[in-house]
């Protein structure tokens, strides 16, 4: 280094500064790098040696353990780990459901990527189309873990199924990218509807599914009708639009109910599937509720404010596990005697949604406080309505500021789903215990194998969430603006 710097100074300093003002890149050979960073003096050398030996021993024993470990318990119980006690003869349902889900997600993300690409062009910015290499780098933990999971399969079918899923991801995303602009603008609705359809494929048709479909169709139709100019404006117009949308939504729900109820509902759901499902539902339903609660808490209306504060502080002040037990053991006591008891998973989703809403509300409130008062005042001064001020000025800034905390909450929620076992739901982690009680595996000390398997599963999804949050932060310029 010293020599190099001397040479550098020996040259014509002025011309060097003029030509290249960046510092010289410190590309060292591996030997030099080690000398500089690991063995710069005697004390450092000793520390490096000890740490290095410990790391080598760790890798050695880890590999030895993995090679010697008996993974038969995973192979025998792979299906239970992934989808729980789903009936074997109905296995086509999870596969079909996954493909519909991929179809929706591929079309939606492809269309949205294209939309932002077109926006960049119209704003004369440098448009970027993400390459497949970049996609793989983004989602490698999930891709890798799905290959890891399938590698325990005992038949060829799961391999084919997974390969088909990868192909479908590529095809649907490219398809979404190439859809006409009019369809692309509606990609969000298509994606959400296909998400619900995929849930209906795995559960079978249901009243709840009809409501969910109807609700999304209603919102979609309202937004479509708001662009129809032949309809009257004002309150009457809104009523007319709502009536038309309601009729269409009801028709969709009724058609859905006409399809025979041949599924199993979600009584039989379990494994990793239920952990992911409750997380996704908890986040997507908890977000809007949480934002409303945060706004309610900051509101000047005393009833709204008090109700929000009571809800948030009650839910936050009580462990999730006790809320789950409360819903499971106490709630039925308050229901009418002839009222059909809701499924365990229904109760769990209500609890998880409320729980995440309360936490999200406090996170969002933190974000709201970070938005300078001048922003609101300036928006009000320019004549925006109270709702518009929140919608277009305050919330975008507030939410952007709290992405790390929010994603932290999502990851925590994902891991909290392991508590569902307390109300008798066979979620991912619980399968580790039940499979170790099977006669051929009991008392063989295989808990370490199954726990490792489960840990890898949790890690892959949690780490992907974390990576995505950092990507979102970078994209939105958190910390730079």
């Amino acid at each position, binding site marked *: 280094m010293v020599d190099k710097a001397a040479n550098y100074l020996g040259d014509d300093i002025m011309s060097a500064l003029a030509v290249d003002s960046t510092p010289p890149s410190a590309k060292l050979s591996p030997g030099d790098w080690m000398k500089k960073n690991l063995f710069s003096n005697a004390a450092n050398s000793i520390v490096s040696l000890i740490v290095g030996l410990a790391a080598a021993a760790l890798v050695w024993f880890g590999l030895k353990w993995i090679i010697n470990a008996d993974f038969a318990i995973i192979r025998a119980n792979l299906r239970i780990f992934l989808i729980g006690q789903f009936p074997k003869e109905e296995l086509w349902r999870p596969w079909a459901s996954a493909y519909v889900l991929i179809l929706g997600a591929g079309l939606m993300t492809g269309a949205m990527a294209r939309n932002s690409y077109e926006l960049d062009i119209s704003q004369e910015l440098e448009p970027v189309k993400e390459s497949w290499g970049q996609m793989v780098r983004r989602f490698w933990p999930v891709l890798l873990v799905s290959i890891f999971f399938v590698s325990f399969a005992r038949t060829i079918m799961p391999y084919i199924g997974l390969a088909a899923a990868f192909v479908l991801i590529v095809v649907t995303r490219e398809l979404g990218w190439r859809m006409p602009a009019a369809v692309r603008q509606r990609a969000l609705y298509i994606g959400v509807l296909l998400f619900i359809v995929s849930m209906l494929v795995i559960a079978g048709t249901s009243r709840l599914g009809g409501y969910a479909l109807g609700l999304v169709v209603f919102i979609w139709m309202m937004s479509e009708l708001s662009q129809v100019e032949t309809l009257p404006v004002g309150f009457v117009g809104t009523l007319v639009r709502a009536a038309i949308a309601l009729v269409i939504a009801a028709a969709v729900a009724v058609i859905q109910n006409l399809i025979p109820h041949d599924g199993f509902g979600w009584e039989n759901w379990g494994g990793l599937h239920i952990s992911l499902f409750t997380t996704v539902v908890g986040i997507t339903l908890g977000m809007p509720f949480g934002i409303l609660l945060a706004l309610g808490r900051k509101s000047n209306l005393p009833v709204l404010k008090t109700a929000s504060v009571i809800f948030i502080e009650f839910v936050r002040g009580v462990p999730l596990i006790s809320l789950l037990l409360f819903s499971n053991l106490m709630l039925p*006591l308050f229901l009418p005697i002839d009222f059909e008891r809701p499924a365990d998973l229904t109760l769990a989703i209500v609890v998880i949604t409320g729980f995440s809403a309360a936490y999200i509300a406090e996170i969002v409130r933190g974000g709201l406080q970070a938005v300078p008062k001048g922003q609101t005042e300036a928006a009000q001064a320019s004549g925006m309505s109270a709702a518009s001020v929140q919608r277009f000025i305050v919330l975008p800034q507030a939410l952007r500021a709290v992405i790390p905390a929010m994603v932290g909450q999502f990851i925590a929620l994902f891991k909290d789903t392991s508590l569902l076992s307390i109300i008798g739901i066979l979620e991912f982690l619980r399968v580790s*215990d039940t*499979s170790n009680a*099977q*006669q051929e595996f*009991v*008392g063989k000390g295989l808990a370490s194998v199954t726990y490792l398997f489960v840990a890898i599963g949790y890690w892959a999804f949690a780490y992907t969430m974390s990576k995505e949050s950092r990507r979102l932060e970078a994209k939105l310029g958190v910390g730079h603006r």
Partner: protein
Amino acid sequence: MKSASKLLRVLAVLLSFVLVVSACGSDGDDGGSADGGSEDAGSDSGSDDAGSDDSGSDDSGSDDAGSDDAGSDDVELAQGGTLAAVQSAGTLQCGGNDTLPGFGIVDADGAFGGFDIDFCAVIAAGVLGDAAAFEVTPLVAAQRFPTLQSGEIDVLIRNTTWTASRDGAEQANFLHTTFYDGQGFMVRADSGIASLDDVSDASICVLTGTTTLLNLNAVLGDLGIPFTPVEFESNDELNPAFQAGQCEVWTSDASQLAAFAANMDIDTAILPEIISKEPLGPVVADGDTEWAQVVNWAVMATVQAWEWGIDSGNVDSFLSSEDSSILRFLGEPITDGDGNTAVAEVGLGLDPKFAYNIISQVGNYEEIFEANLGPIGLTLAGSPNDLWTNGGLQYVPPFR
């Protein structure tokens, strides 16, 4: 100040609203419970009838019904009519275990199985005529009694020991004991320990914080046998330690020792001494005598069939039996002294063929035992769970 008084007013309005709602709610409750009460009265008279059929036991029968009425009105109102509720729902809700080898597990096909789970099937076959018409809710130990009281499950069959305090304080009603377990001791076959007397100064592996540890201290203390307890948090840690020789003796429930021994590479032996009584069986909530009787007789039918040598394979051949008690048991018409042929009605509120359904669809006690507990290394012959005629404890009242 102004906003504070506003808040107070709002709170007052809210409070009065809550009061009105709760008042309405309790009105509704009263109506509901009145219904439940009258239903129960009907069922009580039903059991009285059954009692008078039974020649000798009129008194005890009416006593039972009486004390039940007086003692637990509230619970009864909430829980009455379980049999009708189960039959109208078409599914039995069964609380079970999913992590106890041999008794309650989730197999690799995702189905619940095990000794306790098979008794869920027995009750479903008896009550609904379909051994598959039950759903299992896996419960952790701490949740089983609250879940039973909440009415989420109709019957609890989860290796639950019958004790006085559970019968009393937990409002649980323990029925026929399906498995007589007890705390035992396991040693390596070559250890030279043949009975508890040889255990002196031995190190004993035991799970920490369990009644097993308390029993161990109490019993060996009383016997004056010195020992060193080696405590573990879970069997996953204890099992390898025992196999590695860190302790000479492992104490736990005898059924669990057998389950672990079945998968060990070393030869083990279980000492003859059993130092605690752990009778395990189905449990229902207090306050519904009709339901308790139904569950009890469904379970006891498996033992009665065993006593008569009736199993799932040969039950059809017994339909033409000469023995009128077997015919009555299987719900076949019998001819009385006057020459009238009729199906005997025992008045439990069940299909007369309930025992036939149980035996043909699930099997008798011996079959259930051998299918689930045989593979984990438990033997039936000569154990406390053997039939009373073979010197065991399985004894059921007569089926007439």
